[in-house]
């Protein structure tokens, strides 16, 4: 924090905004978006800019309240952690108006009333940087036509009014061409490599799992109040089972298989319109359902607030994919390289099951759990994968709800 050097008469205090640490293994990030522009008021902890690493996009909260007076790193700039990226004048709080606001133009009657946020008159640009004029933008938006779908005939490919009117006359846009979001680009790159380079095997097993009925009766909450989903219960069982199947808790580079002592289990999470992330619960071996529920809750919360660090997303040795919807039977996931296996959970189904009581089979209403394992066929084979699933099913069934929660 320092005194304002521009105008010594004015009482203003400047706070530097720096790029905070994004995780131990990360030294730089790309600024992808500023949510505020110079002259804007910003509250403490209000999202100020977005930074992207090869792992994650994070919104950075403002470290101070005041007026953003300078942006030192533009969108697209790569910045080292700790570097100054902006300056905030803290002496101008939300209560005071901007000192640069023009004096009211002088009609005699009165000063014009203070307006709220100024209307957005700035032309937006297409992805190729071509400006769309306000008039054209309105014509297109009234006609339900995406600017990106219109071919501009004006100078430098600008969309003229005539272009816009013609496009609207042809009807609303049916094909919208947009570049993939950064998150999807990252996901796509990863999935392409994995699906092209890894021979995937897939085995499915089904279990009668009354444990989940007991859990539901319990309220499915841990003693400290965290939700216990089937993902958490199965993950605990899988982490315990994997101790007997060491080659599944591993990474494989095509030549060398590295088995890991520590079980770092990644949990697949989808992002709305932005691909997916796999935050990792590190050192998960030995965790009870209660402990894991707390760790997962913490990761999910930071995922929602976009506060995951690159470290949260690195070091996975095995992954779990939960059921994406109520009626999904099972997803066949692509392996998250360089890991060698990913466990997939189907949704729990209420189904008639055959249970044996006093030597006689009876049909009852049971809860069916489907489990699948995608595995790297260079490292594992269906027999071993099935054996692993059998063991997980066994351990799920044997969870002691009383003591685990």
């Amino acid at each position, binding site marked *: 924090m320092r005194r304002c050097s521009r105008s010594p008469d004015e009482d203003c205090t400047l706070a530097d905004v720096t790029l905070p640490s994004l995780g131990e293994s990360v030294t730089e990030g790309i600024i992808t978006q500023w949510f505020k522009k110079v002259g804007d008021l910003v509250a403490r902890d209000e999202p100020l800019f977005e930074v992207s690493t090869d792992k994650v996009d994070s919104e950075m909260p403002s470290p101070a309240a005041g007026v953003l007076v300078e942006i030192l790193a533009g969108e697209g700039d790569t910045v080292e952690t700790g570097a100054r990226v902006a300056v905030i004048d803290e002496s101008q709080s939300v209560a005071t108006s901007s000192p640069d606001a023009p004096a009211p*133009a002088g*009609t005699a009657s009165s000063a014009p009333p203070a307006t709220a946020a100024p209307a957005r008159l700035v032309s937006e*640009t297409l992805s*190729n*940087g*071509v*400006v769309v*004029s*306000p*008039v*054209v933008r309105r014509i297109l938006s009234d006609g339900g036509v995406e600017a990106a779908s219109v071919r501009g005939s*004006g*100078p*430098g490919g*600008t969309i*003229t*009014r005539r272009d816009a009117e013609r496009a609207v006359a042809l009807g609303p846009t049916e094909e919208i061409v947009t570049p993939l979001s950064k998150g999807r680009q990252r996901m796509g790159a990863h999935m392409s490599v994995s699906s092209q380079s890894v021979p995937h095997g897939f085995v499915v097993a089904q279990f009668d799992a009354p444990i989940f009925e007991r859990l539901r009766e319990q309220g499915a909450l841990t003693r400290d109040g965290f939700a216990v989903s089937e993902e958490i219960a199965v993950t605990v069982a899988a982490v315990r089972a994997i101790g007997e199947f060491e080659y599944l808790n591993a990474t494989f580079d095509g030549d060398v298989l590295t088995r890991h002592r520590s079980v770092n289990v990644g949990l697949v999470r989808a992002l709305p319109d932005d691909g997916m992330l796999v935050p990792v619960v590190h050192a998960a071996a030995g965790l009870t359902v209660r402990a894991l529920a707390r760790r997962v809750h913490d990761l999910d919360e930071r995922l929602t607030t976009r506060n995951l660090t690159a470290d949260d997303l690195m070091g996975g040795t095995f992954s779990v994919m939960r059921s994406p919807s109520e009626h999904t039977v099972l997803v066949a996931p692509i392996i998250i390289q360089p890991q060698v296996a990913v466990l997939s959970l189907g949704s729990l189904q209420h189904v008639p099951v055959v249970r044996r009581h006093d030597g006689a089979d009876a049909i009852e209403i049971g809860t069916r759990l489907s489990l699948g394992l995608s595995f790297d066929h260079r490292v594992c084979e269906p027999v071993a994968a099935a054996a692993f699933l059998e063991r997980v099913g066994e351990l799920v069934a044997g969870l002691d709800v009383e003591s685990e929660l």
Partner: protein
Amino acid sequence: MANEVQQFDVVIIGGGPGGYAAALYGAAAGMNVALVERDKVGGTCLHRGCVPAKEFLETAHVRRTLEHASEFGITSGAVKVDFAVSQNRKNEIVDRLHKGLSGLLKGRKITIFEGTAQLGADQVVSVLDGADAGVVAKGTNVILAAGSVPRTLPGFEVDGTLVVTSDEFLALSALPSSAAVIGGGAIGCEFASMLADMGVKTTVLEGLPSILAGCDAEVAKVVERAFKKRGIDVRAGVTITGHKPGKKGTTVEIDGGEGVKVDMVVVSVGRRPRSEGLLGEGTGVELDERGFVVTDSYQRTANPHVFAVGDVVANSPQLAHVGFAEAIVAIKTMRDEPVIPVDYDRVPWAIYSNPEVAFCGLTEAAAKERGIDVVVKKDPFGGNSRAQIIGETDGVVKVIAEKRPDGTAGQILGVHMAGPWVTEQLGAGYFAVNWEATAEEAAALIQPHPSLSETFGETLLALAGRGLHVG
């Protein structure tokens, strides 16, 4: 003399508006920039063009205000003009702006070479004379911004006293008592207006059928009428055959007409590109038959690493602000940044005569030439309250819109203004034309009252179908 070749991201030839804008904009993007200037940075515009001319027109405005002060009930002694003082004030302003610009260039770490530059092959620029003669600078890209010089007329040898161009005119320390301005374009009309307002008996001689040939005809007519009202003798459609110096002054001879006897002849018949000697061997740059540099709409010459901006460019309208815009296009293009080229059909024009002229977009005649059906509305400044308050009611606003199939006015194609402070009023019209607003869209926006800009607002309302004051 073997000189080490200095390497730059961009080497710019010429330090006028096009050149210095390119230098500042390039340096702001982090480029390593060299600029070669044979005279002073600022170029024609700052030293021998727009800026000094406007300063003198303001001097004329002050004199006009004093002459009419008694109408407001304010009287003082007789109005006298000491033109040496006026000249001095102009020089001080130019010097200040020149210092400011020099400081700005230095602050951006732009290397300035003094001398005349020539472009050779492979984007190598040699400084031929001046303080930095012998310097050889190679640019990854080169920008030609060599500018223009006044054209002269055969039979009118410029001597700086009897016959002058804008260069000499703007350096005069005393005004003649009578003058003939040959050429009734933008520059000629500004000079004629200034001379008349300073009390000089002034004649404008124009070969075309009307003065201000590039402007909308009705707007040009309004200026011509205002000129004649102030005693300027406007003679359009005349052919000048030469001049005959007498004991005092000279007589300009007109084919088939009576000669005009004046103390001074001001030749303002356009500007030609300063491209002689600009190009050495193997540059790959193409000139047109008049010596202008040929470029594409991204300011690229036939050599893709050589750009050209400003007055030296073929078909560029020779406006400083267009030079700025072209400079930005050139820098962005060479940096592979998204860029929209300058649309010469829609640049703003400003002529600082009394009354002023400002316009943007198509004239009525140009629209018709292109086969566009138009709807036209105009509103004179005479009824504008502010115009009456300031006592300058000569002028008109004319707006041209495309005619829709139902006969109503659609997209605004041109905004043309003559009158008080219209050069400062054009902004709204410029946006309307370039944002392709329709009459209704623009008319729905409010102009403050009382203001000169209401005349534009009234014209739009009328164009949209129903005006308050204008039918």
